[in-house]
């Protein structure tokens, strides 16, 4: 045996995922397709948000959804009712989507529709506030949802998710009068973790905030397509 050799590598552990995410992004760019990665804990309202968003968004833009779910296609079935292309990605026991899964989903989408005609691809990630924050999928923007029933402290407890997000949607704000919840404290915790994120308060019951959310999306699509 020879003496030990130390080979300096300085390679990102998630190098393979990042490499695939870059390839996905190139594909999205070639299709002129804006991709949003929608993330939250389970039950924060991602699927309901998409249902309501797509109803209005479809009037102006061509949309499609990649729907990540651990074991079922239940969420995908809900969105298919809106007559938009939906590709379910069942992750099995994995608690997040990775770039490879999204690449597979995109290939299935290409079989359904020519992505050239699409304006926006919404990717609903698996409900989890930890791992999805670390795995890029090739998205242009990350959107994190946080429902007020989860508590004001969540941006401090799951800082990476909220640090990485470009937009944070505070959901279920119609419940505010019924809860002992300090929305200003939540916002302050978001801002201290991520001062650059946009924040929108939203309710899928009263539809408050949906105009701002739709405007945010429209602006991003139009800027992307320029």
């Amino acid at each position: 045996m020879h003496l030990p050799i130390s080979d300096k590598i300085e390679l990102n552990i998630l190098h393979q995922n990042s490499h695939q995410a870059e390839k996905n992004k190139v594909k999205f760019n070639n299709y002129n397709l804006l991709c949003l990665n929608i993330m939250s804990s389970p039950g924060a309202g991602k699927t309901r948000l998409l249902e309501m968003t797509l109803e209005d968004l479809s009037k102006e833009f061509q949309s499609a959804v990649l729907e990540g779910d651990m074991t079922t296609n239940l969420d995908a079935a809900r969105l298919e009712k809106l007559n938009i292309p939906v590709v379910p990605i069942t992750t099995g026991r994995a608690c997040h989507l990775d770039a490879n899964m999204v690449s597979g989903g995109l290939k299935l989408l290409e079989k359904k529709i020519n992505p050239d005609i699409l304006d926006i691809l919404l990717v609903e990630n698996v409900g989890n506030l930890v791992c999805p924050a670390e795995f890029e999928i090739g998205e242009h923007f990350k959107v994190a949802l946080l429902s007020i029933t989860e508590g004001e402290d969540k941006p401090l407890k799951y800082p990476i998710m909220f640090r990485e997000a470009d937009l944070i949607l505070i959901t279920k704000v119609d419940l505010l009068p019924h809860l002992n919840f300090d929305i200003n404290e939540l916002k302050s915790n978001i801002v201290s973790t991520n001062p650059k994120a946009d924040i929108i308060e939203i309710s899928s019951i009263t539809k408050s905030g949906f105009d701002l959310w739709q405007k945010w999306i429209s602006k991003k699509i139009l800027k992307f397509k320029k």
Partner: protein
Amino acid sequence: MEEWAEKKNKEKIVVEKINLKIGEFTCVEPISLINTFNAAVLGSWLDSSEITIETIPFEGKCSKCNRSYFPKKENGYKSPCCNFNLEEIISGRELKIASIDFKEK
């Protein structure tokens, strides 16, 4: 690792250590990573290797006075000097294989 080993001629080397740099501000729990690694390499060509983890501290920079500081959850990650929000992260997001120690057979 496979790609690296192929370049080195996998059959002619023994990997002793895989040295990682893991930032404190990542979603990686070092102990879980070590346990998973040990389970994953059982019976493989990496069976006799181990991983070492150098923890990289979570360090931010106060955008008001430019001083570096260690953000704390209890303080909302704000700078202790000026009570400013965490704008710039200097370190703590690393997830790297820094180096690999190996011997030629």
